[in-house]
């Protein structure tokens, strides 16, 4: 019975590793300028975690195989090095491992969060509400009109609560349900929550940030590949959570200018 358990553990450990080694299930390919830092940190961690996982499972299996049901034969063998060796190994090896991971990971994190957006980054506002994202471009004046929460009306599609009658800045604002951005241009995303917590998760962009009601946050990123990608909500926001998404269209600058003109005309 013990030998059977040992074999089972090894089979499970190896079977679990196969899809990882084969890259069977992967996230959408990275299209951002910072994503490679996250990906390489993730892959390095996978090597360390994978080795720890396989080593522990195989060692467990070997000892079960060897010692299950064994009878006393003279003096008991003790693991070479005893507890001191194991505790020392855990402290030194695992300690070094996690310190290294933590230190390198900090670099990736800092690149995303501690660098300010460039001065010429393009501002786009995103508002998350149950259960859709809406985007706002400031228009030719470069200014976002103020939000009047009491004027929000989904029936008339006044999604941001704009008051163009009184606010001049609001008159040229462009509101869309799709997020179009020019390729290779830094985007400064201003995040606003309309009702509850949501999240802005774009797997292909390696971007993930919660919307916090009452606290407007910002993000910045640059997309390097033209194409259509998905923005999804990852923070449980209510019954339509699973259906809360928008498309991200990364376009050439010329296509983007056309798109913006077309959207402005439709407003």
């Amino acid at each position: 019975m013990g030998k059977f358990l040992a074999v089972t553990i090894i089979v499970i450990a190896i079977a679990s590793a196969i899809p990882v080694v084969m890259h069977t299930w992967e996230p959408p390919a990275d299209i951002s300028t910072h994503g490679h830092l996250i990906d390489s940190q993730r892959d390095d961690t996978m090597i360390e975690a994978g080795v720890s996982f396989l080593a522990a499972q195989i060692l467990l299996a070997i000892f079960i195989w060897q010692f299950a049901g064994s009878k006393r034969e003279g003096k008991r063998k003790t693991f070479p090095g005893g507890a001191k060796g194991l505790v020392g190994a855990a402290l030194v090896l695992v300690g070094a491992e996690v310190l290294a991971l933590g230190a390198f990971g900090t670099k990736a994190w800092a690149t995303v969060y501690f660098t300010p957006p460039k001065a010429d980054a393009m501002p786009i506002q995103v508002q998350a509400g149950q259960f859709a994202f809406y985007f706002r471009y400031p228009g030719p004046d470069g200014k976002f009109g103020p939000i009047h929460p009491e004027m929000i009306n989904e029936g008339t599609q006044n999604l941001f609560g704009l008051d163009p009658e009184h606010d001049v800045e609001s008159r040229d604002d462009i509101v869309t349900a799709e997020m179009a951005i020019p390729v290779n241009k830094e985007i400064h995303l201003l995040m606003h929550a309309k009702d509850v917590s949501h999240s802005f998760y774009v797997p292909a962009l390696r971007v993930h940030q919660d919307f916090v009601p009452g606290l407007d946050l910002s993000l910045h990123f640059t997309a390097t590949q033209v194409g259509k990608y998905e923005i999804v909500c990852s923070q449980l926001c209510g019954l339509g959570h699973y259906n809360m998404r928008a498309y991200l269209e990364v376009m050439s600058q010329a296509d983007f200018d056309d798109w913006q003109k077309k959207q402005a005309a439709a407003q």
Partner: protein
Amino acid sequence: MHEVSAAPAAHHGPPTTFIRKHVFSTDHKVIGIQYYHLALVAVVVGMVLSWLMRIHLGWTNAAIPGLQALSANGAPGGVMTPEYYLQLMTMHATIMVFFVLTTAPFAAFGNYFLPIQTGAEDMPFPHFNMMSFWVTLTGFLVLVSAFFVSDGPPLAGWTSYAPLSAIGKAAGPGQGAGQVIWATALGIFCVGQLLGALNFISTVLDMRCKGMTLSRLPVSAWAWFITSCMGLTAFAVLMPACILLILDHVAGTSFFIPSGLVINDQLIPHSGGSTLLWQHLFWFFGHPEVYIAIVPGMGIVTHVLVTNMRRPMLSMKAILYSMWALAFLSYMVYGHHMFVSGMNPFSSLVFSFPTLMITIPSTIVVLIWIGSLYGSQLRINTASLFALGFISMFVSGGVSGFFLAQPSIDIMLHATYFVVGHFHMVMGVAAMFGIFSGTYFWFPKMYGRMMDETLGKIHFWLTFVGTYCIFMPFHYLGWAGNVRRYAAFTDDYLKPLIPLHQFISVAALFTGAVQLIFIYNFINSRFRGAPAPPNPWEGTSLEWIMPSPPPWNNFGGKDPVVYHDAEQYGVKTASGADYIMQNSPEQALPGGDGD
């Protein structure tokens, strides 16, 4: 600590009526069994909910026969609506975390065995102890009542993030009455656990018998003691958080609701609250809570292993210190749940390092377990199989912590199935394996009859393979970016993952069905099992010196005296046994393989 003489005064007499004996009993053993049965009922409810969820996730538009009877609005024509999925998910998680993973390994086994293992006749506050169970049961009934209010249970998940949880009815079905019921139930539950924790702590500190120094306490008793210390501080934070949440609903306060929120084109009449305040309060409780679920399991597994390896652990001290380190660190790391929540990004780094540090004590414990197997005379029985399965699961679930501890990687994995896989393996399956191990190990003592080992082993094998088939693929899903808490997978990049979800659903239905073997074995053995001897596993701790089941006053009115720690295995004795019980004055002869 020195030789604390413990002549516990007989603070209550034998129960005379049926009600005092089996219902409103102050006997810690009866209370322990009551907790165990509560956990058993709760786990069946929680598992059925997970079945319904898994069917829905595999086959979203399929009608589930009979589901309409449970909720006509939640399942029109038997097809689960998205909100009903989330409501079942919230109830599944709340029931499992609070009423199974906290009650079974901690409150159930702890109540039964902690006083016995310390050599006490009972806990110091038996009436508080009785109250603890009945308050917890009330909490459970209140929680389940959410199924029967008009809008159903809340849908905000077990973490119930504000403001979704605080705004009320406008935020969605179940967010009115259901959410208030949820917060009330947890508030009540906290009271029960605080009373229990107080009793556990004072039992260990004040009620030990003569010779039972702290260093001679069995490891399981230590684990319950550490857990009580965590419970005392963690539940004391959750309870006020729940009260504030209820006030936001019923008293018009705005602890968690900022101004300017709009739902259904209506301005929410609140202002000045903080969304992140709830997250801080919840996770300050929430992270210790996952250790409250797993540390007793570590204690139980160590206790079962040391008995079945017939040798002491390489270093029991290393295990104890590691458990203390886990308990301490669990308060330093809660922010790793909030890396992308809008907390200052600098804090994320501050929380990241202690989180990574948790790997160290966890690795020490695992290495001591594995290293102690070397050279042991491992006895394979259902209890030890589950204990070994626990180690395997703990490792599998633990290594994914490497990823989640790092904020940079968390950008990809936060709120995905990777997280769900991680905590299900560590605090779900591993903790369940701890509970199963403890059940097969202590059932003879608790019920006076042996469990069927053949059925037990079948149960183990199918559960072990089944749970890996369920929860390992969760990691792959999360790796591919599959967001959790989705009632259906409509995103283009998630559609290719649906076959994997269907595989998981089949595995979950199968593994769930396998648990019927356990329930049959449990009930059948309870009434028809072979009578249990006092010490079926040749253990050394004090529970094995008494008859199975023990009399109402544990040691028959006599106070045991302890001479050894609980690790006297693999020794040479005059009688030829390879172990010396804690209360035996006998000393090991030279020539045992411990020398």
